[in-house]
């Protein structure tokens, strides 16, 4: 508004100091954006979890298999709308470095229970009809240049065939997309039948079940019911909502949240000092000028507001620069994290933190400015 020229000029009184403080804040917010983005990225899987789905794994560990026979029993439970299953194939393409996320599934069941995976009907049909058929994610297809009709060999690190080899051949019959989460377009699905017939051990088992419930509010009960089916059997199960499952998995990777919080706390602590010091210095230097403003008729409160607004202007400008930089650099982390875009919520958080920073560093000098006695200040 009309006070802007005054605020802006006040900031640039000491060019070097303002630039350095600005850059310090920008750097801090760049870090904030990146780290919180990482944090949010990890939590995204949890956020995007579907409330209608439960995951049933062996109660021993995720890595133990479950009998295929369990499927019919789970499906028969009241409240269950559908059941699908998947297993961990664990292959690489040509070189151990090229790991591929691959899962043998039953096409109709799996794509039915994951409606967010968009696959044209004809391709789904081709998948069902082709024994060696494979449906791959759009991102994966782009990465290796695979097209429909290509023959792709994968080497499984786990599953060997009776002849002792671990090389499996597939024909790409479809490409799926996931518009709701572009980071999840890198899977390689193929037919469970081909898998089970081809492997030399653990036949007749699956890795885990996915259960769709009719009413999400009944999730807990249905989960308990599933586990009750197999309690006291050699293959006890653990069923939880998709969200809980993702959360538990993340927890195993470590308390990323905590580490990020610690680092950011440390950074902003240092920043508070730096910015606070700058604001204090700035006000101290401008005591005569602030006194003059008061002689002109600016009230004590308006002088306080002016100082706070200066702080706000500095912090918001710097934070904006830092957050924009983070937003621009973030997609570069795609490969390490699987997150594509800096979530908007992080930017909003950043702005809030910037305002807080401005207030905390500005309030003390602003208060001093308010309480400035004109006569004393002019005399000095």
């Amino acid at each position, binding site marked *: 508004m009309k006070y802007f020229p005054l605020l802006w000029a006040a900031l640039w009184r*000491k060019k*070097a*100091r303002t630039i*350095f*403080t600005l*850059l*310090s804040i920008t*750097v*801090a917010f*760049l*870090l904030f954006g*990146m*780290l919180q983005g990482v944090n949010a990225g990890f939590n995204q899987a949890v956020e995007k979890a579907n409330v209608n789905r439960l995951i049933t794994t062996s*109660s*021993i*560990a*995720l*890595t*133990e298999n479950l009998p295929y026979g369990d499927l019919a029993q789970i499906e028969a439970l009241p409240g269950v709308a559908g059941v699908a299953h998947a297993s961990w194939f*664990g292959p690489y393409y040509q070189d*151990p470095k090229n790991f591929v996320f691959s899962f043998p599934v039953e096409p109709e069941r799996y794509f039915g229970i994951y409606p967010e995976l968009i696959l044209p009907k004809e391709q789904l049909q081709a998948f069902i009809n082709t024994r060696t058929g494979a449906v791959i994610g759009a991102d994966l297809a782009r990465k290796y240049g695979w097209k429909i009709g290509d023959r792709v060999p994968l*080497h499984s*690190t*786990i599953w*060997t065939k009776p002849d*002792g080899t*671990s090389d499996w051949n597939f024909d790409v019959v479809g490409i799926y997309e996931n518009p709701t989460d572009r980071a999840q377009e890198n899977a390689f699905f193929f037919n469970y039948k081909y898998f089970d017939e081809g492997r030399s*051990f653990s036949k007749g088992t699956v890795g885990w079940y996915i259960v769709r419930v009719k009413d999400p509010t009944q999730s807990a009960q249905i989960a308990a019911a599933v586990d009750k089916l197999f309690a*006291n*059997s*050699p*293959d*006890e199960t*653990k069923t939880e909502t998709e969200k809980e499952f993702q*959360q*538990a998995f993340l*927890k*195993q*990777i*470590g308390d990323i949240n905590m580490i990020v919080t610690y*680092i950011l706390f*440390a*950074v902003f*602590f*240092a*920043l508070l*000092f*730096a910015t606070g*010091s*700058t604001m*204090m*210095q700035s006000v101290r230097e401008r005591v005569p000028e602030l006194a003059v403003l008061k002689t002109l008729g600016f009230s004590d409160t308006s002088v306080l507001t002016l100082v706070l607004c200066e702080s706000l202007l500095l912090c918001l400008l710097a934070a904006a620069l830092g957050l924009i930089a983070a937003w621009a650099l973030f997609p570069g982390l795609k490969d*390490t994290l699987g997150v594509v875009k800096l979530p908007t919520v992080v930017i909003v958080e950043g702005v809030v933190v910037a305002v807080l920073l401005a207030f905390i560093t500005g309030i003390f000098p602003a208060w001093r400015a308010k309480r400035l006695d004109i006569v004393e200040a002019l005399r000095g």
Partner: protein
Amino acid sequence: MFKQTTAITSMNLRAIPQRMGTSWVIVIGIAVTVAVLVSVLAMVAGFSKTLSSTGRADRVIVLRGGSVAELSSTISRDNTINIMDAPGVKKDAEGKPIASAEMVAVVALPQRKTGTAANVTVRGVGAKAAELRPEIHLVAGRMFQPAVRELIVGRSALTQFKGVDIGSHISFRNTDWTVVGEFESGGDAHESELMGDIETVLSAFRRNLFQSVTVMLDSPDAFAQYKDKLTTDPTLTVDVQREPDYYAAQSKQLNKLLNFLAFGVGGIMAIGAIFGALNTMYSAVSARSLEIATLRAIGFGAGAVVVSVFVEALLLSLVGGLIGAAAAWLFFNGNTVNTLGANFTQVVFHLTVTPQLLVSGIIWACVIGVLGGLFPAIRAARLPVATALRAA
């Protein structure tokens, strides 16, 4: 010049208490940067230490060819015998190979810290396991008996998980097991595991395939020949690796990530700290422009002025670096961190703030200080004496 420098420097340093506020900016900015850098690198050091201390140059681990980790490997019983009988393997007093054909299973147990379940390795080991791994010592309880459902728990696993104290019962696949002893093995990867008799574990999981064979060689030099023998055997498809190499490869991914974190985050923080230092030093120089000008007018050389600014910046940075390094050591040294390891199970490792790291941290601090002092020092030297005196 030296006398001049000392004179100006001591004058500057004595003036620091008047500029506590801005001086603290450098100290804290650098302290924080060094603390974060050192702690993250301590994670790297700890993790590497855990994995690299697992294994000896004369021990070899054999997996099925093409399997990246034990969990995905399968070896038939016949093959394990051939692997253990191949020449180069050390024999005990009775002429039996010091080797162990093993399997690993993953079991989910509740963690002490969070209460939620995490994966832990249950390793079935052969009869000669104790001789194979002399670094494993029982510190409480007793060894498990063969053919009985008993387990010993590693020290790290004990601190991390609930329900694995001596005397506890764990059940999986309808079998009930008792923890009868606790072992330590110098903080290596095995300390995060539970161990039991191989045949008993195999039958509990209804498996008949082993996952790895670990053998002790006659000497580390026997490796090349041993590997050759196995890889040229037409009945075997195996990967033969020295233990240290195997474990080093496992940590590569996490190492990369942690290093990225350390230098990425640390680097950015360092840049921020440099700006903070520049700010402080510029303001220091500007606040004392009158004094500096007076000194120059009297006859002190520009060089002395430059050095004095540098010394001040360095000193403050040093203090910051020491505080940061000390903080990292105090708060994090010895802390345990656990994360997902190669077998999809938790690996526990201890943050190790090594003296080397402390020194690196302090060096970083000094680098920041020098960079932060450079331009202000030049500015101080180039101060137009007359203008500065007049401004008084």
